[in-house]
């Protein structure tokens, strides 16, 4: 049996006894728990505690168990994410460590075999020799450093030097690629830039500076998640920012992943190239109504809603909420911290443990 069930039995047993050290369960819980446990001893918990169950743990039963008349509305919720496009920025410790290791490498590695790459007498060789005189080492990203000279011991990076910064290293590489040779064949002639190398695009984009939350070009080092606003919320509440959610259509005998694809298209339009990762949900949540809705006609009672989160990735395109079937008014692409600030506590609790660090 599940751990949750065992704990509850213990609590229920304790609550039955009249000692003063009973754990303070609220009256509703005590009564429902008591009722359920006296009704069926062996069945697992019907309504799971409202915590996300990560995919590794076996969750309690999701379908109604005890009485055939108990039902839940099944909903699929989409966690559509754009994965990070850039590597993460380095910490100061990492930068200094990598520079230190590169300088150690200079001293320990086999010397560069120049004549294997630059043949004697070629202009490339002359170019190489000139550059070597300037920076004293074949490597370009460790500054002016001669590992084998008498002053090779003096390799401490001075205060204010930006040698270890990745941007400076990339700039050094590009400057090296630009300087191509001297004017004419004169070794003392002026250095001519044969080819201006294009600088790489900056890591901070226009959307970052402006703060356009609808853009997918923002926060390229982080994962961005699609959230929508408007339409009908969970359990009929007022709709704040949340993930696109919709009922599984019984008429189509839908499974979760087909429902996920349908919801993505109906929410954001066909202009998105998306991929639903697998057929399994990554989180499930159970929400109970305060009072179950009894349907006497069909003989069942609707206790609440079960929401299954399906993971999807967006590869290209952009969401377009015009003509969306759920009445959503606005969408945003938010990172993990922004989600925490935007979501209600209950919604954030539902997903906080399954969002990756980056």
């Amino acid at each position, binding site marked *: 049996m*599940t751990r*949750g069930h065992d704990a509850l039995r213990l609590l229920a047993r304790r609550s039955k006894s009249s000692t*003063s050290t009973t*754990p*303070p*369960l*609220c009256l509703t*819980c005590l009564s*429902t728990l008591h009722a359920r446990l006296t009704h069926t001893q062996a069945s*697992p918990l019907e*309504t799971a*505690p409202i915590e996300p169950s*990560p*995919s*590794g743990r*076996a*969750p309690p*039963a*999701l379908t109604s168990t005890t009485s055939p008349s108990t039902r839940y509305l099944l909903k699929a919720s989409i966690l559509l994410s754009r994965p*990070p496009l850039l*590597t993460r920025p*380095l910490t*100061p410790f*990492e930068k200094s*460590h*990598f520079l230190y*290791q*590169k300088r*150690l*490498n200079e001293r*320990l590695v086999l010397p560069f075999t120049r004549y*294997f*790459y630059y*043949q004697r007498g070629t202009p490339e060789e002359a170019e190489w020799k000139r550059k070597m005189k300037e920076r004293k080492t074949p490597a370009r990203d460790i500054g002016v450093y001669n590992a084998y000279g008498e*002053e090779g*011991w*003096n390799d*401490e990076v001075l*205060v*204010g030097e930006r040698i270890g910064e990745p941007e400076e290293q990339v700039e050094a590489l590009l400057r090296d690629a630009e300087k191509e040779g001297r004017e004419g064949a004169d070794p003392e002639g002026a250095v001519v830039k044969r080819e201006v190398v294009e600088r790489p695009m900056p890591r901070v984009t226009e959307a970052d500076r402006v703060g356009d939350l609808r853009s997918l070009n923002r926060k390229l080092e982080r*994962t961005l998640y699609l959230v929508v606003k408007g339409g009908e919320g969970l359990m009929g509440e007022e709709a704040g920012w949340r993930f696109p959610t919709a009922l599984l259509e019984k008429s189509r005998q839908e499974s979760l992943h087909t429902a996920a694809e349908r919801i993505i298209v109906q929410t954001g339009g066909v202009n998105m190239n998306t991929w639903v*990762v*697998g057929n*399994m949900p990554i989180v499930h949540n159970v*929400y*109970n109504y*305060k009072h179950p809705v009894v349907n006497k006609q069909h003989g069942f009672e609707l206790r609440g809603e079960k929401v299954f989160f399906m*993971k999807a*990735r967006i590869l290209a395109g952009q969401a377009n909420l015009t003509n969306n079937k759920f009445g959503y008014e606005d969408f945003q692409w938010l990172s993990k*911290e922004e989600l*925490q600030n935007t979501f209600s*506590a209950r919604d*954030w*609790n539902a997903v*906080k*443990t399954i*969002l*990756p*660090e*980056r």
Partner: protein
Amino acid sequence: MLQAAPWRRKSYQCLYSTRKTSTFNGMTELSEDVVPESSLQVPGPSEEHIQRFNPIARSKRRRSQLPPSRYQFRPPRYYRGPLHPHQPPPPSSPASRLFVPGPFSLPRLEQTYHSTLAPDLLTLMYTHHPPGTLPGPSGPRLRSWDGSSPYHKNRPLRAPRGSPVLPLLRRPITFKNIPRLEKIHVHSFLKDAGVDMQYLHVAGMVLQAITNARAKVFKAKHSIANFHLRKGNPCAVVEVVMPRIKEYKGVSGRSGDSSGDIGWGFSPEIVGAFPEVEINYDAYPPRMIPGIDIVCCTTATNDKDARLLLSSMGVPFYGKHIN
């Protein structure tokens, strides 16, 4: 009625709809024991100190120098056993002769793996078991003889059903054992090297250029093979080399050794298209650049998982996937 609880309010959590928000916010929070100050935040040296700092000048000003042995430490050249008084430093120390300088950057494949690929692979490889439906303990994988014949006594166990070989057990994939790439073997088989040693040297240079490590030579009875083992960095192969192959379909779907290792080969023309070889293509003797075999060893235990991992990293597969 609810009685006053002697324990803290925080530990009380009602299990049903009136749950209180927990204090854990999902992000790694530092505990109170961790001191917030960092040595990197301590105010640095004063301006005057910075101006005056000149180690070279300081060393030149010294009139008397200590003997070099006071500045240098030379680790022992021979290892003479654990009881010898002069012990070599551990290989992780920069003073050791065996020291290999550590990481020079955060490999982008590793970052992509941890941020994007591993969560997706976990989602894809997870098999759901509702509670109470976990398969019970299975029978022995190698059955024993039933004793119907007197000759069954002391016989070794029978072969597994359906195959002469016992395949690896596939443990359920959890967050702790997502398949990852462990090492990559780059291998080049040279049948002409027995005749002409130059092939061996050229192959060694090519392998060194591609993998940045020295090749080891293994001799078979009639021919010679060059091996090399390397960890990580298949990015360049996938991103730059594979797309340049004309009409490349991918790696065969039949590749794989049922233990999570997938291998494929590159012909000499493709090896010549590697950026590290192309830059000084003329330096190699003509037609001596060898073809290579690449074997990616992963922690997966079967072909399907290994193929899924490699295709998530960008290696295309074609044809029928045979496990």
